[in-house]
């Protein structure tokens, strides 16, 4: 029983937050901060797979998030709200329970496919040049969407809130919050399982010595494909959740600034540490809210903090250690297969 303490604790926490939100103990502001925290955790941990574990420098994560956000939004809007393309909704509101997760999946899948744009050149090229490719990919996604008038172009795209309204019409509980928490949990769980398997450790082998990895039987191209697609796919999931939290998206919210934010979280937490990235995402979200009073100065202070971090603790808060490495007693409370 003790071995499951952490697992039970996590689910209890999710249930507790949902209940508190349901009875308005947590007001809308805190709920939205919690949801963005979840989205940030997914973004930071998934980018960490590429920038931390694989040692690449991907600086276009926002682009994949954008693909996921738009594709899943398009799905739910077509299915559940009145729109300019099809007119009436395709499906009744009761179908939202299947439709919403499905749309998130489709969005993630689309983002994973978009990840191929970066994954395929990564077979031949590494480092700085690959960084540029990710950067260009980010710009291409943003300017492609800016040019699609049918989904609003630069003005953005909306109508996603109909999905939550649909779900709430059946049962009035904070659905998007619940889905966000489950999505966050699922992503971290997926990544944890991947990087702790012998298969997933091939990714770290690539980062430490790619030639040795290839010659010692690691199919480096396949590993890169998996890492990039998994990473961008999860970014897509984060994008889908983000879009349905806000009920509105525009391309500018996924530009290079967003990608930079995600990188800040990864390097704040420590490369190659999932719990580090997750903690950093929590810290970063809180910091962004706490520093709100600084207004424009916020984005002077945060880079400064990171510069100081690079000078004095460049390995990030956690280095490549996990929480359980720092506090071995934690292991007693969870069993990880």
């Amino acid at each position, binding site marked *: 029983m003790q071995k499951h303490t952490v697992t039970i604790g996590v689910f209890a926490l999710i249930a507790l937050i949902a209940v508190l939100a349901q009875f308005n103990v947590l007001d809308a502001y805190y709920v939205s901060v919690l949801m963005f925290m979840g989205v940030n955790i997914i973004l930071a941990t998934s980018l960490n797979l590429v920038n931390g574990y694989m040692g690449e420098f991907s600086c276009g994560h926002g682009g994949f998030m954008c693909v996921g956000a738009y594709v899943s939004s398009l799905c739910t809007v077509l299915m559940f709200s009145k729109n300019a393309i099809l007119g009436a909704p395709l499906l009744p509101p009761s179908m939202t329970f299947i439709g919403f997760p499905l749309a998130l999946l489709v969005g993630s899948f689309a983002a994973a496919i978009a990840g191929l744009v970066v994954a395929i050149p990564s077979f031949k090229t590494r480092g700085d040049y690959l960084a540029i490719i990710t950067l260009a990919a980010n710009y291409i996604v943003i300017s492609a969407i800016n040019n699609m008038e049918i989904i609003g172009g630069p003005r953005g795209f909306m109508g996603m809130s109909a999905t939550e309204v649909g779900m709430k019409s059946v049962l009035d509980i904070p659905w998007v919050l619940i889905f966000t928490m489950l999505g966050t949990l699922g992503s971290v769980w*997926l990544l944890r*399982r*991947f990087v702790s*398997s*012998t*298969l*997933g*450790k*091939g990714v*770290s*082998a690539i980062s*430490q*010595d790619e*030639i*040795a*990895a*290839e*010659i*010692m*039987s*690691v*199919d*480096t*191209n396949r590993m890169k494909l*998996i890492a990039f697609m998994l990473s961008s796919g999860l970014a897509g999931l984060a994008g889908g959740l983000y879009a349905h939290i806000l009920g509105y998206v525009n391309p500018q919210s996924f530009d290079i600034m967003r990608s930079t934010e995600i990188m800040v979280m990864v390097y704040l937490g420590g490369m*190659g540490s999932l719990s580090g990235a997750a903690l950093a995402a929590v810290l970063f979200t809180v910091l962004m809210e706490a520093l709100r009073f600084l207004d424009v100065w916020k984005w002077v202070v945060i880079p400064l903090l990171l510069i100081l971090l690079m000078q004095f603790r460049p390995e990030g808060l956690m280095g*490549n250690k996990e929480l359980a490495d720092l506090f071995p007693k934690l292991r007693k409370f969870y069993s990880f*297969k």
Partner: protein
Amino acid sequence: MSLLEINGLTRRFGGLIAVNDFNIDLGEHELVALIGPNGAGKTTVFNLISGFYQPSEGSIKLKGKDTKGLRPHQVTALGVARTFQGIRLWGEMHVLDNIRIAQHYRLGYSLLDCFLRTKNYVHREKAIDAIAWELLEAMDLKDVAYELPRNLPYGVQRRVEIARAMSVKPSLLLLDEPAAGLNSSDVEGLIKLVRWIYDNFPVTIWMIEHQMKVVMSLCTRIKVIDFGTTIADGSPDEIQKNHAVIKAYLGDDTI
């Protein structure tokens, strides 16, 4: 059938001919050396076999299968493992992981198995673990299983690298200067280790080595190359007396 059959292997880099018309035929369970002066093209031969370079001409056949166009990990999957001149372990992962990862080609589970932790996954990971521990135990590395390679003495790192190569379960083991940088007691240990591997595994060992002590005490056959071309091939006794070899190493005495 021979294990490794190389015919007319040639590799050019621009105008430089690194390996020229190289031929060899290795059977099952042999202990062979490849020697030659620095820059003779020895490592290039190994790089060609492991698929890191593609031959300009000629063919490499492993157990009758032409390796042309195969990528290095595919060649390894056919049963070729190697070590490197400068040690190339994954320095940030502990020794046990280093040895686990080299079994990548026979993981035997898919990404989905990995996500869902299926029975197959659990079973396969256990098998991988078992092989890794078995090797660590046999090669006296059990105590350092959770150490990072970069924290280990050079001699131990060499052993870890050989253990990693053995976890591929190779039928051909290529050792690229295994004694380089070792002190004399480490060299003794290395000779014992190679002998032990040869006695206990069905493997053909082919090594590049400069220390004649290692070569002469281990190998039954020696091939000598210089400027990419074979200049001698035979037993240790024959090689020691071979005039062309002496000339290649010491220079021409008939000035």
